[in-house]
């Protein structure tokens, strides 16, 4: 097993930061009336979702293909990564409650779809998966969609939510 390539991971993190900044999360945090805590909460939600999906992918890929479903479940339960995932889940839940306390559900939920972009980029660069034109088109659609949503108000004014 080769030693971890930290330079590559740093590069990926920098790329993710630039992507998120480009599509607006960082921009939103410096916009007037957009709470920094909400921007950070959304970023954490996307990062945790990305990690959970990647760990799941790695776990599934590492399972023996000839094992029974029960043997596969046992193999997953004995992995240290599984404990890491179990610890991350409550963090994700409480962070999500904090985000919902500061933004509309119809605003926050679609923004977290950026994890499709993060997972795709990391799968291509880290897991060496092939990317095709259909997936790249999908990523452009997701980025465009998140940009449109980031241009709307993050919370409904109280009068309209009561109407």
């Amino acid at each position, binding site marked *: 097993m080769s030693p971890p390539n930290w330079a590559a991971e740093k590069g990926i993190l920098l790329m993710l930061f630039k992507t998120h900044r480009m599509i607006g999360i960082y921009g939103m945090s410096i916009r007037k009336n957009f709470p920094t805590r909400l921007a950070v909460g959304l970023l954490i939600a996307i990062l945790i979702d990305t990690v959970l999906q990647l760990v799941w992918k790695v776990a599934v890929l590492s399972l023996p293909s000839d094992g029974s479903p029960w043997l596969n479940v046992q193999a997953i339960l004995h992995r240290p990564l599984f404990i890491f995932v179990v610890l991350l889940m409550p963090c994700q839940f409480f962070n*999500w*409650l904090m985000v*919902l*306390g500061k933004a*509309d*559900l*119809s*605003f926050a*939920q*679609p923004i977290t*779809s950026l994890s*499709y972009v993060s997972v*795709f980029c990391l799968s291509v660069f880290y897991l060496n998966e092939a990317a*095709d034109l*259909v*997936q790249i*088109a*999908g*990523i*452009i*659609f*997701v*980025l*465009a*969609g*998140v*940009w*449109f*949503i980031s*241009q*709307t*108000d993050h919370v*409904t*004014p109280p009068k*309209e*939510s*009561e*109407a």
Partner: protein
Amino acid sequence: MGQATVGVLLVVIWALLEGVAQVFLKKSVLEAVRRYLWISLGVVILVIEKLIYSQALLFLDVGAAYAISSLNLISVTFMSRYLLREKVTRMRWLGVCLIFIGAGLVAVRT
């Protein structure tokens, strides 16, 4: 009913339940009085939907299930508009539809 149809039906039910669970979680931060009731209901539904999703994977390919599951964006937005009375503008709907299409395109090749 074919296996694929059952799988699609289960994922659609999952997407609807995801919308309901998210509405309950949002209610928990809106209403201080019944906060823990809403959280508990939300968590129970999240657990049920996970079981339904894992059943769906018995009938469907992972990529297909993942692609159809982006339907949850539509259900969450729809329920936010009509159950939580959130202001969902045309621009927000456009964004949601673009993400729905994009997520489907990315996931279908997973």
